């Protein structure tokens, strides 16, 4: 179902209605002069004024909401001669609405679902989420969603998908919950010119996207070019800092650390995001390292996104958000790698 809502109604009426039922998460710069200020981030929104719907990209993706870094799994403590375990994972007490998620990030949730679909805490959170997506107003500088079929439009993965059409948002429902929302009185029927305005906006964004590549050509080239000298060139520039992994909405590797008190009488098991660029990532017992060389680690990440996931799951797991290039200190850009492949 397609409808439109005036921006004023969106910010006043819809926001207030949503707030009554949901905990609202959206793009914002509230919180002061940190990098989360320089770059908007997904955070709790109490006031519509704090929403930044015109954002282009964020530093951190939404994955922290469903797959938090530094999440304590359980606590153990010695009680006499026994060991007591306390579950520390927490389910949401209130449903959340995610406002303003761009199509690339909506696609990323589908990737996370494949990885964490068996985790009941994860699925519970996903079930308690209402996704109100937002198509991009303009292309971000290093994004390539259209090359990996995750934008600038989205076909699924949302309850509602908004497009800014000037003084209002065009709203497309993607689920029954979305349709129910659209039945509220401040959503009006979409006129043919609204549909046109939406198409025009998406076309503009698509035209702005630079460095488009053919996914088919890339995936077949990857199958053949594992030993290409190109990997040396890219790896030379890589500082193995792991920034790309952290900001990636589909990187899901983690390690489990133990945070124990000095006397080990009590401790916690904690999930910590890991980086496949770190030397000890593939370190095995017996001091054997599967990917000791920087080059092999660099290559592994690209293959994981564009080759292994395709072979195993039938779909590449990169959504083209461009964050890895945005926050790479060396500006290593997947688009360049792909086009040169």
């Amino acid at each position: 179902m397609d409808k439109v809502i005036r921006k004023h109604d969106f910010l006043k009426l819809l926001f207030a209605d949503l707030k009554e039922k949901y905990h609202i998460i959206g793009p914002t710069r509230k919180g002061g002069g940190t990098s989360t200020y320089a770059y908007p981030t997904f955070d709790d929104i109490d006031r519509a004024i704090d929403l930044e719907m015109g954002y282009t990209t964020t530093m951190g993706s939404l994955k922290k909401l469903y797959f938090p870094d530094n999440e304590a799994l359980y606590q153990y403590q010695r009680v006499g001669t026994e060991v007591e375990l306390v579950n520390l994972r927490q389910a949401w007490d209130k449903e959340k609405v995610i406002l303003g998620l761009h199509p690339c990030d909506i696609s990323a949730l589908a990737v996370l679902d494949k990885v964490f679909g068996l985790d009941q805490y994860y699925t519970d959170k996903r079930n308690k989420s209402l996704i109100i997506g937002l198509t991009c107003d303009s292309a971000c500088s290093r994004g390539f969603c259209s090359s990996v079929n995750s934008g600038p439009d989205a076909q699924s993965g949302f309850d509602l998908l908004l497009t800014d059409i000037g003084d209002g948002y065009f709203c497309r429902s993607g689920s029954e919950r979305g349709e129910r929302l659209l039945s509220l009185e401040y959503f009006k029927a979409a006129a043919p010119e609204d549909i046109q305005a939406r198409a025009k906006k998406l076309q503009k964004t698509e035209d702005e996207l630079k460095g488009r590549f053919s996914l088919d050509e890339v995936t077949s080239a990857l199958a053949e070019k594992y030993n290409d000298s190109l990997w040396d060139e890219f790896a030379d520039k890589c500082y193995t800092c792991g920034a790309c992994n952290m900001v990636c909405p589909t990187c899901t590797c983690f390690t489990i650390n133990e945070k124990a008190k000095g006397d080990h009488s009590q401790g916690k098991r904690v999930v910590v995001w890991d980086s496949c660029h770190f030397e000890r990532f593939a370190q095995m017992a017996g001091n054997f390292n599967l990917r000791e060389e920087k080059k092999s680690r660099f290559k592994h990440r690209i293959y994981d996104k564009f080759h292994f996931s395709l072979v195993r799951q039938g779909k590449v797991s990169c959504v083209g958000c461009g964050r890895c290039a945005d926050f790479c200190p060396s500006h290593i850009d997947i688009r360049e790698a792909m086009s040169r492949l």
Partner: protein
Amino acid sequence: MATRKEHITFCHICGNHCALTAVVENGKLVEVKAGAGYPANMCSIQKGADHLIGTVNSPDRLTKPLRRVGEKGSGKWEEISWDEALDTIAEKLIDVKEKFGPEYVIMVLGEPKGMEFPFAQRFATAFGTPNTITPGNYCGVQSTEALRYTFGSRYIRARMEGNPGLVTIWGSNIAHTGGTFSQIGRNDLNRLIVGGDTKLVVIDPKNIELWPEKGMHAADADYWLRPRPSSDGILAMGFIKVIIDEKLYDPDYIEKWTVGFEELRQEVATFTLEEVEKLTWVPKKDIQEVARLMATVKPALIGNGNSLEGNIEAFQMARALAVLRGLIGSVNTPYGGLVDQIPPNYYPPGAFMMSDLKEKLKEYPRTPERTIGGSDFSIAAKFGYVPTQALVDALLTEKPYLPKVGLTFVNNPLLTYADSIATEEAFKKFELLVVSELFHTATTRIADIVLPAAVLSEYDGIAYWPAWFGNLRANVKVVDPPGEAWPDHKMVNELAKRVGLGQYFWEDEIMAMDYMLEPLGMTWEYFRDNVRYLHGESLYDPEKVIGYNTRSGKVQLYCEELAKSKVDPLPRFKDLVKPLMGPCEITESYPFIMTNYKSEVFMLSGYRGVKELRIKSPTPTVYMNPDAAKEQGFKDGDWIYIETFKGRIRQKLALQPGMHPKVVNVEFGWGDYGYEDANNNLLTEYSRPWDTATGCLTLRGLACKVYLAPDEGE
């Protein structure tokens, strides 16, 4: 045909000085990224890029020498030639030297960027003025000199390659504003965090971002201690007390490698942990647990930033931290987290500015009688600087004499010195104030002559700062400076020739750099093209304690030499309490404690007009605890006044969960390009009391009140 060239150079917007690749197309800087193959710390390289691209391409840069034509501060200028500018300055310098003496000319310097600092110091020596003002009184000297008096070296660095089991980050926002003095870099820290074998302690009032891409903050560390601003020395003494009382030290090491343990033991018996808790606001239990970690986890390292240096006992506070490091054996031992290093063998700034000018130093000694501030600052004098407030005081009181000429390079005293109003009044008393700058600032506004400066990357230069990092970098020219802008050290070199000191300087600046590198056996050109970067050599020995370059050859917990400089040889609890007194005491009228943080986007007061940076930090931001703010009736994003006994400023409120409810954390450095009323130094006082060793004064920890402000002007 379009040309594209990549240059490897080094960033200078924060203390990390990451290697950068600067991409120039058709003479224009278009992209800046990490400098492949050379050290980069992954701090916000984005910030380095924005800064460099924004600065070199800015339409607001000063491009011609300017002479004031209206009243001071009227902002009316005429463009003049370099010849005219330098001749005018030289004529005045010669005149003042003849009529009053060379000491009436003041070199006013900022944090060293390139070669301007050693050039200006050399000029001071050759000309005969002992009055080189630097911000050393609140930036670096306390920490590095405390290390030198305790361990015999200021080149002590973190041994990150040894996978420390405990990392303590104390008053340093390492992800954004340079690392700690011991060079704990983000890259290394990130690996340790994920590795899971390292305990992390953060001591900071602010919930600093530790790993922005990961969204990790201080609150995610094993311990986040939030001491009352300026109470860090007491906290360090608290840790020391736990370690001594619980006998957590290694008695053999203490016996063999330290002096003064008994005096230290007696000192920690003079106070209780309950007192420490009360004064620092850090729970006793946390003090005990962290102290136990520090003493028992190996290797352990404590890295501090310079935010600890903003109080009247800053030197003794730094000594307390150094003594703590010594007590746990973390320096120069096989199991220590910190190690001494030998820096590259070049003429360091000290040698460069003085060593071959001994005759001049005899003729014009840097004695207390000739120096403003007199004999007040024993350690500052040894370090070759005069504290900033001594200049303000001398100008206002005209004691011991009224300085006549101020030559200002790479700094903006009207925003960065304590008490901006007094500083402005003082600086207006210079008969001639010359300011070299990239952009107009609060200080150029009241200058008589403004000289257009080139920024690093617009000229070739050796970068050595911070000297205690023990590394040397080739900052290469990647684009031409705008208009007629010159590197600062060229200005000094040319001025020297015009005041008859040509024989102590060089035909051109490249020859000076060749001289500086002479002990390394290489020329500037060779260094630039073939070496680019040199770092110190670690003295670490896994088999034994390598010893200490102090007079006693041991760790000086109690330091006799300090007594000769009229400084207490031991940090004392009763002294470390002083920064919490007077205007820092909480009262009914002033129920909060103000501290300040450096911008994570700009550098100190600089670059506020650079749009690439401003877009990321458009407004001055003050942090408060959400509950404390709510109690005052504030909402996130409100504009509020922060008022101390001295004055008030207006900043925009951001709420930070977890912050101590009594702390108000103000952003430092605003005042140029809008928001004059947000200038942190409208809250601070320049006059006594001062730290008599290094000249530090109260920059943080003042009691304050907060109330709603109008938001016009946003």
